[in-house]
């Protein structure tokens, strides 16, 4: 399931090389846990001994304004942490869709928070996975866990990192929040994964 930029090239001796590097942009407004999703993905990648970088948008941002970050996961050392053309985009609100829709590479996947985004990408060369992450999180009694639902869905769909690594990462990241929060977030991650699993099988 894993979609990667695979460059298979041959050198003069005919030996072939492969290079796999995947870039994901997370975007939404402040408070949706956009940067946390990126941090979880990067931490999970690190735990799988992959090369990872996390690059936030920084600067003159306002509280409640837009936030985004770019995560690179790679088998080889990462040259640039910037994604001009990301493989995956996780878009949590409509302005994010408008901003990043055109940047995703052909054949890439756009993950949409369908509770917040009514529009759909106009282009037909990307796969769209729409997930009502707020509805799912609220159903689980964990309204703040919408981003966890999304990261579960992303991991399941892309295979960038395993669900186990994601769950292990949040245990570490939220270590001070206690077992109850970890349990709720683990459930949210698994629900997100189950949602895309169900969608792809139906």
């Amino acid at each position, binding site marked *: 399931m894993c979609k990667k930029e695979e460059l298979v090239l041959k050198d003069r001796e005919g030996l072939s090389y492969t290079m796999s590097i995947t870039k994901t942009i997370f975007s939404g407004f402040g408070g949706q846990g956009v940067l946390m999703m990126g941090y979880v993905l990067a931490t999970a990648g690190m735990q799988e001994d992959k090369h990872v970088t*996390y690059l936030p948008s920084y600067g003159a941002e306002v509280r409640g304004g837009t936030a985004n970050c770019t995560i690179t996961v790679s088998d080889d050392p990462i040259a640039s942490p910037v994604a001009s053309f990301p493989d995956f985009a996780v878009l949590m609100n409509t302005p994010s869709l408008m901003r990043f829709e055109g940047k995703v590479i052909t054949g890439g996947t756009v993950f949409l928070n369908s509770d917040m985004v009514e529009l759909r990408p106009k282009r037909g060369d990307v796969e769209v996975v729409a997930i009502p992450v707020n509805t799912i999180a609220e159903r689980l009694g964990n309204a703040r866990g919408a981003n966890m639902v999304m990261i579960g869905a992303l991991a399941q769909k892309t295979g960038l990192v395993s669900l186990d690594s994601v769950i292990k990462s949040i245990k570490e990241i939220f270590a001070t929040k206690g077992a109850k929060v970890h349990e709720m977030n683990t459930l949210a991650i698994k629900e997100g994964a189950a949602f895309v699993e169900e969608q792809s099988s139906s």
Partner: protein
Amino acid sequence: MGKKRLMRGSHVIAEAATLAGCRFYAGYPITPQNELPEYLSGRFAKLEDATFIQAESELAAINMVMGASMTGVRAMTSSSSPGISLKQEGISYMAGMELPAVVANIMRGGPGLGNIAPSQQDYFQATRGGGHGDYRTIVLAPHSGQELVTLTMKAFDLADTYRTPVILLGDGLMGQMMEPVTFPEPIEPSALPKKEWTLDGAMERDSRLICSLRLDPFKMEQHNWKLARKYAAICERETEHESYLLDDAVVAVVAFGTAARIAKGAVNRVRKEGLKAGLFRPITLWPFPENEIRALTRSVKHILVFEMNFGQMVEDVRLSVGEKATVHFHGRPGGIISTPHEIADAITRLVYRHELC
């Protein structure tokens, strides 16, 4: 080495400084390095022997570092381009007074207030002393999270060894990006070599004087020659660089910091197409590894310098190689981060134009 931690570059510098035994920080906020003082304020609060001051200005901050350094404590400040310009007076004074300090410059776009995007616009300022006077500062240019650890810690050692300010030259990308890093064991300040020049009370010894004012021209000249000998010793002993795939290369890319990691990606790309390119990465920008670059010209006749500015280090490369190789330049000023693809194109064009394959 401890466990891998995913950390922001600014935090890495702050943590590495603490582990190196730094116990004094003064600074004034500026993007994109605010996370450094933010982290350190919390980190120092937990240490009994550490002082963190958010000063009223950059000038105040550098002068506080100057005062702290006189007492022997490992001291640092940090800022970004415009703030570093404000600190230059103090850095010049400290060079004259022979005071150690670490100054981190997380460069942004400019000139003037510019923007907050990553650039390498302060190469000249950093490597030519920066302030007024006949002096140099050691300049270290990290290109990864892990190197932020090693070079920050090394900066404190070099500053103490040579009694001189050391500049850690990063950019917005180095400061903001998170990468996995590991840290070594901490160095306790009490375990550091004792400094025999500090101002710590002259009860049972002769009094000491630390100043940069020398009104007598002969004494001033004497002092300047002393500094010159020190800088010559640094040039002889302390250059550091990385060679990447240069053994069979016909084109060498020369780049530092963020530009170097992008160039490394570009070299990997063109290598896959069979083009023999390599990367020479100066780690110390001053002293500049000029002998090492000159040695390169035994096999390489074309050098491509890539910088995130419109051409500064390229002058040092030209001075190093003289007529022995042709030096080309590719640059993006103003806070643009080139893609590895763009640099790979520049290398490819060079190779075909000069029929190097």
